């Protein structure tokens, strides 16, 4: 009897130890130390105002998917896809607000991975990391595939040539390899290895470019308005609308860029929610206008498998190729910048994880010559290029969406958890309408996820389990935080 009791006690202590490991949080001071280096950049100046923050939001979001998402979303929802945009946008807005609170509770800058690590613990951080790898890596691939469609359209319009189908489509879509997408990822990787930055001015220029291209589509496309196309407004009902919202959701990825800039924002309590609302309002307005013009210009059946959709619609409306050419050129520039930015984000998230000891140290090796993590960039680029070259776009965009949605759920739940476990933690920004906002955010995300294709959900689960298996097998032992704890414990025990 005593034996059993002793065993039980041992088991319990072991479980408690495991729980402590899963919930160990990274101290904020450690984060501040490692980002500050001794480069004199540790001290912060709050320099970002409302306008610039809104531009960051708009720049982060617009252009990720609107150029090609309609060909997947309209067949699912019909013209009611307009509502899908609104739903996806509102859910993205709710989560961005939650995200902003979490970010403001951690007074150093980072991605949602770092915020989760500092507030919710290592396990949650790992789940968020799994989602982010999808959000960034897979969306880079998706965006690169969309780029190759517009490149083909531009080549066709300008020179009358096209890259053969075998070299411009994934095997599942009737080709061998999507070569332009692979080339795009390679080019972006080269730029990142050389070292790149995106100043406020560059971002503003990109925002203007993207908005001009989309405005061109709206202004010209509206001349092809045909109310007959809207007659069967919602042929697949509410579930179709939600399903399309799931596909569309990834066009709102990037709104979190607003939250991660929080540390440098002047008067965050007021600026943050305003900027999120301005950015989101602008984006939803533009997206809804684009979608409305598109579904009114051509019947819903024509969207399926339409490549370089917006350019094709314009050409049909005008009956000439020039608007398509202009739009394709604008899209190529916009999508290029987005690919670069997202690929960059991916390498820096892996870099942060590597510094925490959760992925191998190869990801944090910095080339002494270029001062950039070259190996990290190459590995990420190869992985993304393989995805972009071999996997069709509809699957890629759904995988991105589900990754983002789950990351957002963790963040929203995190806000609630943190309010309970650490109510006194100073927060630069608090969610308005607590607890309704985070709850609505979680419900909205779950609603969208359940309407995704089963295969996407299965693939996501497999991926998450794989990442967590990696964590339990490798990351847990190599975690820098764990190592530090063990060292401290051994010092206290007096054993070497």
């Amino acid at each position, binding site marked *: 009897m005593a034996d059993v009791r002793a065993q039980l006690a041992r088991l319990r202590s072991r479980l408690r130890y495991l729980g402590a490991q899963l919930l160990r949080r990274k101290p904020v001071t450690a984060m501040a130390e*490692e*980002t*500050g*280096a*001794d*480069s*004199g*950049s540790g001290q912060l100046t709050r320099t970002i105002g409302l306008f610039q923050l809104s531009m*960051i939001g708009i*720049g*982060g979001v617009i252009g990720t998917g609107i150029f090609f998402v309609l060909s997947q979303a309209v067949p699912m929802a019909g013209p009611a896809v307009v509502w899908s945009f609104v739903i996806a946008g509102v859910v993205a807005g709710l989560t961005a607000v939650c995200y902003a609170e979490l970010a403001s509770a951690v007074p*150093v*800058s*980072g*991605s*949602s991975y*770092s915020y989760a690590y500092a507030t919710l613990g290592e396990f949650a951080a790992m789940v968020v990391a799994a989602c982010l790898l999808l959000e960034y890596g897979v969306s880079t691939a998706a965006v690169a595939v969309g780029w190759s469609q517009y490149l083909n359209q531009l080549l066709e319009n300008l020179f009358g040539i096209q890259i053969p189908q075998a070299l411009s489509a994934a095997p599942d879509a009737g080709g061998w390899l999507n070569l332009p997408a692979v080339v795009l990822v390679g080019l972006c990787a080269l730029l990142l290895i050389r*070292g*790149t*930055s*995106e*100043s*406020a001015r560059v*971002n503003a220029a990109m925002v203007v470019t993207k908005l001009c291209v989309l405005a061109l589509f709206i202004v010209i496309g509206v001349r092809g308005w045909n109310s007959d196309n809207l007659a069967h407004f919602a042929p697949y009902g509410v579930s179709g609308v939600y399903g399309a919202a799931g596909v569309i959701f990834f066009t709102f990825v*990037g709104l*979190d*860029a607003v*939250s*991660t*800039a929080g*540390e*440098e924002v002047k008067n965050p309590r007021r600026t943050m929610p305003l900027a999120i609302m301005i950015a989101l309002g602008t984006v939803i307005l533009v997206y809804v206008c684009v979608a409305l013009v598109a579904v009114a210009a051509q019947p819903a059946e024509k969207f399926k498998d339409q490549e370089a959709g917006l350019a094709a619609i314009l050409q049909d409306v005008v009956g000439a190729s020039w608007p398509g050419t202009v739009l394709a050129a604008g899209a190529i520039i916009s999508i290029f910048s987005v690919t670069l*930015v*997202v690929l*960059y*984000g991916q390498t*820096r*998230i892996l*870099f*942060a994880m590597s*510094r925490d000891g959760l992925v191998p140290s190869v990801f*944090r*090796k*910095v080339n*002494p*010559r270029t*001062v*950039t*993590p070259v190996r990290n960039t190459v590995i990420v680029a190869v992985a993304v290029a393989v995805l972009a070259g071999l996997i069709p776009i509809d699957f890629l965009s759904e995988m991105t969406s589900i990754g983002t949605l789950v990351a957002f759920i963790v963040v929203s739940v995190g806000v609630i958890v943190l309010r309970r476990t650490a109510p006194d933690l100073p927060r630069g920004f608090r969610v308005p309408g607590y607890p309704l906002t985070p709850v609505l955010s979680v419900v909205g995300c779950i609603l969208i996820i359940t309407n995704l294709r089963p295969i996407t959900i299965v693939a996501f689960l497999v991926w998450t389990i794989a990442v967590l298996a990696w964590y339990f097998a490798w990351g847990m032992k190599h975690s820098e935080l764990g190592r530090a704890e063990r060292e401290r414990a051994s010092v206290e025990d007096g054993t070497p």
Partner: protein
Amino acid sequence: MSLVLGLPRGERTTAALNLAAQLARSSGEDLVVCAVGPATWPPSLAKVDAEYQEYLDQAIQQSLDAAKATLPPDVSASFVAVRARSTPAGLLEVADQQGASMLVLGSSSAGGTGRVSLGSVADHVLHSAPIPVAMAPRGYRCAPGPGATVRRVTAGYGATGGSEQFAVGAAGLATRFNATLRLASFAVRPGPVLTAGVGLHAEDGVLGEWSRHIERVQRDTLAHLAALPAAPLAMEAVIGYGRDWQESVEDVGWTDGDLLVVGSSAVGPLARVFLGSRASKIVRNSPVPVVVLPRS
């Protein structure tokens, strides 16, 4: 061993002479001031250009006389006039004849005051000379009198392949000039990527990791140099940070008596000076005189 100064024309002579005098004073070597004129044509019976040749000889002699007057009195120098098919060729020839240990040049007048800028002669020499080449910033002056020597040699240290040998070369230079040695590495980090959603300080982590690596390499190199038979008087290491090369070079701090040394590119030929792309960025942003070492 001697220093050969390629005498520039006009207002630029003073800066080059100042540097040459400072270097000669520091190392105790002789100074050879060299003016190069265009080569004569093959002699013709008509002697149509005899007067022109005479005029050229006079002009060269005048510039040498002017240099003699400008040169600080405590430095002994010899003055040479040569005729060559091109200025770089003439300079390299004289340097070869004199067994020179270093070639000194002035900046082009196209650059800003206080900066090193390469004219056509310097550009040619910096991609072919077999000996170290020193460049004075435009309008360079050092404190007059016998005290104006090189006090600290700063080696622009890349911590990449071949840099160990470069460090040894720079240490040799410091010993020769009786100066201290400072290893300086420069990090040019671009600003943040605003819309990536990874925070505005993602680059700081990368930079921190880089700094740790560079500091380790610098420490190892300093230990290696300290073991040399002719180690410099004192050694230190610094890292300069900045958004561009100018900020980054300025970040390490410069004073009177400083000299910056950079190495030749690994893609250049062995035992020759060959200014690489990064070295030329450092050179262009240097507020102090620069020496480019050949690849060893």
